[in-house]
Each structure stands twice: as structure tokens, then as C-alpha cells.
């Protein structure tokens, strides 16, 4: 019901704007624009007006959401490059962010796609998960290049127990 209302509202709103656009196309030169009116906004609303299909909009929105993680990849790459490979508080914080965001996003997967409730969001979800995984992979790569991943034997050295001695020896220089 709520979505229906929303849709009806949207229809109303888009109707208004389309009318408006028609008006403006006629009298654009004659009349000055009202205060706080921006032409660019009208233009975009005009575009939207062309796609009156509600589901199309929802699809678009959902794809926007789904593609957001992948769009972050170049940005993340840039951050990674900027952070450098030295281990200090800021690079660590950045790496932490790189990790946290996709993981959080994955946990809130259903929450993010709730707003665009539709039967066929599986594709978007897969793309979304894929994007986040790519981001996690990037973060892992960053950790690897910073040497934070315990992939070498030296990383486990602290856990190597001292060996138990099998023999005991005693004695010394003779006293006599």
C-alpha cells in the first residue's frame, strides 16, 4: 500500500513537472524564471518524465545501489596508492576502512535492497556482492603489500614452542 501511494505521488509530481516543462518550452523566452528556479533541475525532471514507468525507476535505483561498490574500486585504488606501504596510524586506518565498508555492506545486504522491494533483485544482489568482494580483495591485496597478512613462516615464529630437551648435562672443570 505504501509503495502504491508513493507511486501515485510520484505520478502526480512527474505530471506537474511535465506540464511545467511544456509551459517552459513555450514561454521560455517571454517569461523570466521564478525565483529559486533552476533550469538544470527542470531538464533532469524532463528526462525523468520521459521514463514514466515506475518499475524502470526502481530498477534503475536498484542498479545504482548494486553498482555502487564497483564504482568505489578506482577510488579505493587511489586511496591505496596514497596510503603507501608503511605501517603507521593513517594507512592502518585507511586499510581498516577498506575492510570495514564492504564487510558492513555485505552484512546489510538485505537492508540496502529493501528500499527497492522488487521480486527480481537477485541479479543486483549478485553484482553488489561481487563488487564488495572485489573491494575486500583489494583490501587484502593492500594488507599483503603492507606485509600484514600472516603468510610467511616468520609470522608464526612467536608461536613456536621451545623444544623439550631430551638430555641433561652437568659437570665442569675438575676440582682437583
Amino acid at each position: 500500500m505504501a509503495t502504491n501511494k508513493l507511486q501515485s505521488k510520484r505520478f502526480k509530481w512527474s505530471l506537474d513537472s511535465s506540464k511545467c516543462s511544456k509551459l517552459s518550452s513555450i514561454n521560455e523566452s517571454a517569461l523570466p524564471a521564478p525565483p529559486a528556479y533552476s533550469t538544470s533541475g527542470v531538464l533532469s525532471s524532463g528526462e525523468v518524465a520521459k521514463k514514466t514507468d515506475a518499475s524502470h525507476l526502481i530498477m534503475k535505483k536498484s542498479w545504482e545501489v548494486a553498482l555502487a561498490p564497483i564504482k568505489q574500486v578506482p577510488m579505493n585504488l587511489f586511496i591505496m596508492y596514497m596510503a603507501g606501504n608503511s605501517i603507521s596510524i593513517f594507512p592502518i586506518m585507511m586499510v581498516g576502512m577498506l575492510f570495514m565498508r564492504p564487510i558492513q555492506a555485505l552484512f546489510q545486504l538485505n537492508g540496502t535492497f529493501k528500499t527497492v522491494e522488487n521480486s527480481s533483485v537477485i541479479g543486483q544482489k549478485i553484482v553488489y556482492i561481487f563488487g564488495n568482494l572485489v573491494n575486500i580483495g583489494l583490501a587484502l591485496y593492500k594488507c599483503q603489500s603492507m606485509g600484514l597478512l600472516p603468510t610467511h613462516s616468520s609470522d608464526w615464529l612467536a608461536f613456536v614452542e621451545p623444544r623439550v630437551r631430551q638430555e641433561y648435562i652437568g659437570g665442569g672443570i675438575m676440582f682437583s
Partner: protein
Amino acid sequence: MVMHKMTFAMNKHLLIFNLIFVTYLKVVSSENSIEEDNDTQGRYLIEGKVFPADHPFTPPNWQASTQLHVNGGEYIGFVKEDGSFIVHNIPSGSYILEVLHPEFSYEQVRVEINSKGKFRARKVNHIQTSAVVQVPYPLKLKPLGKTRYFQIREQWRITDFLFNPMILMMFLPLLLIMILPKMLNDPETKREMEQIGSLTKFEMPEVSDYVTNFLAGTSQTQHAKKNAKNKKRQ
């Protein structure tokens, strides 16, 4: 015992020095052998004068607390009232003389006495054993300074605190947050900002649009088909 053959590999650096100064060493070694043979012959004395630290820092009774060690205490000299000292009974050879005082440090000196009783004093250089920087003999030993045994406790200063990069990094953004909104309150700057915003604004086709359009095309046809089916049923 087979391992006995394994000689100790000296460090590269040292080896280089070896190569360079082999000739010098040969001279020295022959000298040594002579001096051992004539062990009983010549006994010499090293003399000199130790100066205390300058007036306000001169420790009381410094003469009694100053000692001279030749070759790590093999021969010992004591300082007289006027600071002069004599280390007795030294056969010819090469010696390192150090002044020991608990509060002041002095430079070590190498004193060489040849078999004829000729003295030469030079700066100690353990690495380049042939580099001779002569110092006057009889020795005049002046303190290098008070020996610093202790670390100085760091004191808390406001400048240290303020110029700490962390503090700078924390306060600068804070300042920006506090001041920028004030600046934006000014209508002119606001307008300028907007203009800049409108200038930089340009249209970018959104990927999601493409994807939606691409997918929508198929789905719409599907919808149409479904509708058609529904109609048929009706």
C-alpha cells in the same frame, strides 16, 4: 678435531685493513720480537701531566681520585699534587694509556717506546692502526668533559605539545570545520561557490541507467508477453 683447521674468518673490513697495512705490521712484529728478547734490558717511564676540569668544576681532591692505566691496568700511575704523573717500569713496546676519573672523561693515548728508549705518543686509532696523529710527549691530558652517565628527563613543554604532528592534524580540520561555515554565511562567497559548482557540473551518463535500460528492454518484453498470456487466459 678436524674442525680445528677452520680458521676464523675475519670481517671483510678488517681484512682490507690487513692488506693495506701488512708492511707496517711486519715492522711492528719484528720490533716486538726484539723487545721480548731484551725483556730485562730497558725499563722506561711514561710521564706527563693531567689537567683537571676548569676552575668551577674542579672536583676537590681530584688528584687522589685520578689514576692512569696503561694497557688496562697492567701498569698504574698516580697523579701528584700538581697533576704530573709517572708510570714506572715499562719495557719498550706500544701501550694505551687512559686516565680514569669517575666524573670526567679523557681521551686515550697510545704511547710507543722503541727499543732505544725513544718515545712517541699518538692518538688511539684501533681501526687504522698505522694512521699516526702525533700528540706532544710528555703527555698533556685535558678532560674532554664531564662524563654523562645519565639521561636527561624529558620535560613537558607546551611548544612540544603544540607542534606535535598529531595535534596539528587534529586541530587543523577542527579549525576548518569551525571557520568554513562562518565564511559560507557570507552571501557573496556562497554565490561564488555555487557558480563554481555549476561550472563543474557536467552530465555523465550513469552506468546504472545503461544497465537498467539494457535489462529493462528484456524485462519489458517479458512483461508484454506475460500480459499477452494473461489476456489470453482472460
